[in-house]
């Protein structure tokens, strides 16, 4: 296979590395395809709490997953989850069907996450240290089963080192760059949808993604050279 063909195939995701963003993307498209949201929203607007809870259950796992990956902390992710859905409950009457419920709830969640990232940047917390609900340190990589044929302790150690360097590199992004990169790379959303969620244009989302990848490249360059 010629080198350029191999690069092109890798770029468009022929290999398994895209699995994570793919599964998130599939989940999102499933969420998008869920019909009857409108009926549930109208019922929730009339004060039907059961209808609202049904809506919540369609999206809450995705919301929790996003908050957990962005904050790296179960207590923080739970707080964002609570606040997002309570806000949605209080303001569901203002929902005007101008976008999907999914975009609307994600807009609330991303705003809360952005606030959280900004506060953390001010406090200069280290997100590489991840906490579970009991306040104990947790390594997200521990949760991923490494059942590949060539899995061995040395490779595992390298993966951990890489993971920690990536976490460090991500802290160098602005909250907005971090959010756009998260939604694109890890959640697999289209840039147009990301623009809608962040109340901006697709063009701005593209530029932000460009800046984010440039920064990540320069942060991770020493590691690649070694």
């Amino acid at each position: 296979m010629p080198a350029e063909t191999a690069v092109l195939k890798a770029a468009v995701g022929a290999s398994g590395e895209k699995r994570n963003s793919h599964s998130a993307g599939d989940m999102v498209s499933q969420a998008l395809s869920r019909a009857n949201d409108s009926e549930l929203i109208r019922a929730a607007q009339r004060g039907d709490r059961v209808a609202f809870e049904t809506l919540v259950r369609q999206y809450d796992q995705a919301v929790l997953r996003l908050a957990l990956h962005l904050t790296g902390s179960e207590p923080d992710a739970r707080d964002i989850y609570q606040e997002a859905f309570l806000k949605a409950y209080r303001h569901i009457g203002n929902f005007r069907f101008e976008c999907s419920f999914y975009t609307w709830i994600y807009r609330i969640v991303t705003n809360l996450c952005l606030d959280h990232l900004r506060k953390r940047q001010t406090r200069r917390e280290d997100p590489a240290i991840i906490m579970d609900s009991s306040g104990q340190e947790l390594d997200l990589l521990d949760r991923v089963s490494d059942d590949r044929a060539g899995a061995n302790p040395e490779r595992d150690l390298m993966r951990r080192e890489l993971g920690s360097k990536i976490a460090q590199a991500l802290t160098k992004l602005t909250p907005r760059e971090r959010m756009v990169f998260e939604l694109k790379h890890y959640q697999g959303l289209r840039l147009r949808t990301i623009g809608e969620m962040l109340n901006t244009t697709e063009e701005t989302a593209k530029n932000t993604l460009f800046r984010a990848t440039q920064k990540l490249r320069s942060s991770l360059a020493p590691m690649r050279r070694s």
Partner: protein
Amino acid sequence: MKCDWTKENMVLYIYDELADDAKFEVENHIRSCIGCREELENLTALKHDMSAMPVTEVSPNLLAASRMQLQESLEQAEQNRSAFGMFIFDFAGWMNQIKLAPALTVALLMIGFAGGTITTWKIASNNHTIVDPGPAPTKDVDVASFESILTDPTSNNVTIKYDTLHPQTLVGSADDPRIQQLLLLATHSNRDSDVRLDSIDLLKDHAGDNDVRDALVSALRYDKNPGVRLKALDGLKGYVRNDVHVRDAVLEALLHDDNAGVRAEAIGLLDSVKADSSIREALEMLAKRDPNQFIRSQSQRYLASTPHLD
């Protein structure tokens, strides 16, 4: 020029965000440009590296705990809303309705204007007529509260607005909607737990109704009297399998109710859904930590009789 354009669009290319014609341009250029090909290799490698921090699935425990906490917050928010909602004028909502219904707005304005004109004319023509005050309260106890006292400076007239209380009795079939409505109200009676007990006892046979089921769930969660909570559990037993709210409430009682009798009853109700992962986790926790020996042994028994699916 072509290289600059390609490099600017490379990120969009690797994330499959380019239109077909632009994608074709990039691919064509890369075939003939070593520099851009290297750039693409670097970006592809970066994309690959970034996947070393994957998005993990949310644990069932975290999801169940978050859902329970949210449900409590929503109930609290709903109670606050119903308590204060009637006193708060929703100006934004009103404006929106006006915006959406111009014809209705015009009609309402016309009716209001006509009504106001007629009333003013009547008052002007009967300046000294005293409005019939209606029957005065016969006893002090009839008056529940006073709303306002207004005096007319030009005459000796005083206008008193007050609310009265009259003990009333309603007799009817347990299926009568008015009886059901009163029973639902009685489940919140703070004065007498016997009243709550009796109302829950009567309502538990009508748990197919959503309002009744909500009242039973609310009693199970918040009633201070364990007897009332037990009755509520009894009423909910047929709905644990199909109603996820009921299941959450029973699970919550199982984990947090301070009464061992209620917890023991809750275990029995969860028998039909014991394979559910959140139920299993709760049972595992109870089997290890519950202070009550009976509950520990029951939890162990249920766990032993359920195959572990993980």
